[in-house]
C-alpha cells in the first residue's frame, strides 16, 4: 500500500494569476483540490476608516484606488450617495459626462478582464490586443481629466472638467472602431476549441446559490437572473437609453465570458445614444454649498459597476466628515463563493474560476 498525503500549496500572494496580492491556501490530492481557503487583506489600506477623518471631496481620490480598474464608477457611487443625501441637482450636461465616462470605463474594465483572463488560460496575444484598445479609452480619460488610472474626475454635484473641444467627437469615432475590434476578439478567441473546452461547464452554480451568496454583476447574470441595476433600479440617465442585459443559462465560466463581451457591445450601444443626445454647452457643476455637510441620517446607494453592484452606505451626523462610510465592494462579495466552487476542481481550474469571477484586489481588500 502506497502512503499518500495531501499537498498543502500556497497560491499567492505572489503568484502570476492571482491578479495582485491575493492568496489561496489549497489542499491538493494529486492535482485535485480538496479544500481552499482564501486569504485576503494584503492590500488593505483602511479606506473606510480613513474616510472618517476626511471630508467628502477628499474621499473621492481614495475611491479611485479602491477599484482601480474601474475608478469612474467608484467615483460615481460616492458622489451619487452624497448628492442623494443632500438632495442636490446635477446639471444635465454633467450627468451626461458621467454616464459617458462610466460606460467607457465599463468597456475598459471588461477589456482588462478579457486580456488577463486569456493570459491566465495561457494565450498571451489577447492581453496585448485588449490593452491596445484600452489605451485609446485611457488616453481619452487623460485628455478629459488629466489622469490615466486614478481619475478623481467626479465631484459632489457635478464633474470637475467639461469635455475639451473635440472630445465627444473622439468618443463617437471610438464606438465603431471598438465594435470592429470586438469582432476581431471573437475571431481570435471566442471560437477557439481549446479555449471553449477550458471554460465550458467550469465553475458552475445555479441561480439560488448565486443569490444566497449575494453575487452580482456577470456572476449573477450568468445563472439567468435578470438583475442589472442600470435597468432594475435606474440611476443617472440610464432610463433614457435602450440597451439589453445579456443573460446566461448555465452559470459557468463560458456564460460569464460571453456576458462580459456582450456587455461591451451594449455599453457601446449606450454610448452611441448618449453621444447623439449630448446636450449643448452648459454648467457641469451644480449649485453646491461651499462645505458639503449631508444632513444627519443614513443612506445606501447601489450602482452597477463592471464587477457587479457597488454600494455606498453613508452614516452622517451632519458634519463635513462621514460618521461611518461603508462600501459594498462587488469583488469582495463575489469572491465569497470561491472556496465552494474550488472543491473537487483541479489546479488548472482554480485559475479559470478565479479569473472568471473577475476580482480587483484593491477592491477586495479596500
Amino acid at each position, binding site marked *: 500500500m502506497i502512503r499518500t498525503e495531501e499537498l498543502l500549496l500556497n497560491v499567492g500572494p505572489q503568484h502570476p494569476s492571482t491578479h495582485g496580492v491575493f492568496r489561496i491556501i489549497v489542499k491538493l490530492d494529486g492535482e485535485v483540490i480538496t479544500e481552499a481557503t482564501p486569504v485576503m487583506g494584503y492590500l488593505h489600506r483602511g479606506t473606510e476608516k480613513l474616510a472618517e477623518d*476626511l471630508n467628502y*471631496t*477628499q*474621499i*473621492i*481620490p*481614495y475611491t*479611485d*484606488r479602491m477599484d482601480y480598474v474601474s475608478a469612474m464608477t467608484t467615483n460615481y457611487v460616492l458622489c451619487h450617495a452624497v448628492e442623494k443625501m443632500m438632495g442636490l441637482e446635477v446639471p444635465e450636461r454633467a450627468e451626461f459626462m458621467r454616464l459617458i465616462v462610466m460606460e467607457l470605463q465599463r468597456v475598459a474594465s471588461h477589456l482588462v478582464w478579457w486580456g488577463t483572463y486569456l493570459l491566465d488560460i495561457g494565450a498571451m*496575444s489577447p492581453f496585448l490586443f485588449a490593452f*491596445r484598445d484600452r*489605451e485609446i479609452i485611457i488616453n481619452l480619460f*487623460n*485628455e*478629459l*481629466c*488629466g*489622469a490615466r488610472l*486614478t481619475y*478623481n474626475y467626479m*465631484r459632489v454635484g457635478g464633474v*470637475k*472638467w467639461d469635455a*475639451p473641444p473635440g472630445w465627444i467627437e473622439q468618443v463617437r469615432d471610438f464606438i465603431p472602431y471598438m465594435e470592429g475590434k470586438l469582432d*476581431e476578439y471573437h*475571431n*481570435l*478567441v*471566442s*471560437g*477557439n*476549441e*481549446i*479555449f*471553449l473546452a477550458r471554460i465550458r461547464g467550469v465553475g458552475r452554480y445555479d441561480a439560488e446559490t448565486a443569490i444566497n451568496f449575494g453575487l452580482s454583476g456577470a456572476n449573477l447574470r450568468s445563472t439567468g437572473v435578470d438583475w442589472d441595476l442600470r435597468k432594475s433600479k435606474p440611476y443617472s440617465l440610464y432610463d433614457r437609453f435602450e440597451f439589453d442585459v445579456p443573460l446566461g443559462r448555465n452559470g459557468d465560466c463560458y456564460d460569464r465570458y460571453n456576458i462580459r463581451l456582450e456587455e461591451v457591445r451594449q455599453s457601446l450601444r449606450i454610448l452611441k445614444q448618449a453621444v447623439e443626445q449630448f446636450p449643448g454647452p452648459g454648467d457641469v*457643476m451644480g449649485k453646491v454649498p461651499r462645505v458639503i455637510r449631508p444632513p444627519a441620517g443614513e443612506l445606501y446607494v447601489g450602482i452597477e459597476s463592471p464587477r457587479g453592484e457597488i454600494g455606498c452606505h453613508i452614516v452622517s451626523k451632519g458634519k463635513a466628515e462621514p460618521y461611518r462610510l461603508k462600501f459594498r465592494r462587488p469583488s469582495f462579495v463575489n469572491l465569497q463563493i470561491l472556496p465552494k466552487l474550488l472543491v473537487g476542481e483541479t489546479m488548472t481550474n482554480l485559475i479559470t474560476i478565479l479569473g472568471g469571477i473577475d476580482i480587483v484586489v484593491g477592491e477586495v481588500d479596500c
Partner: protein
Amino acid sequence: MKGLLKGLGVTLQSMTKKKVTTSYPDVPIVMPDRFRGIQHFEPDKCIVCNQCVRICPTECITLTGKANPDPEKKGKVIDTYDINFEICILCDLCTEVCPTEAIVMTGNFELASYSRDDLFKDMQWLDDNNRNVRQDNNNIGAPAAAKGGAK
C-alpha cells in the same frame, strides 16, 4: 478546428499591421494640457492661505509663512513649501482650491529616483519645475472672485 484557424488568421494578419509601440525614453511623451503631473509652485503668487494643506487628502504638503519683508504691505509671504512625493497622489485638489494659482499642475511625470529622500521636494525645486505648466486650471473650489477667466 474552425475557431482555431480563425484565431491563427487573426494573428497572422496582425503581423503586418501598424505597430503601436512608442519609443518612449527616446521620444518623450507629451501629455495633454489637463494632465496632472508634478506640481509647479510660484512663491510670488502664494498668499499663505493654507488651503492646499487643508484639502490634501494625504497630508503631503507642509508650508510655513513669514511676515512680509516689505513693511508697507500686509499679510504673509511663503517661507518654506514642501511636497512629499512619497505620499502625494497627484489628485489635483491642491491646485483646485488655490485661489491665486500659485500651485499648478505640469505635464511632467518622471519621478523615479534611487533614494526616497529625493522624493521630498522643496520650494526651490517646485519653482524650477516650470516646463509644461498647465494652462487651464479650472479651480472650481476657489472663491468666485478669484476664479478669473480660466473656465
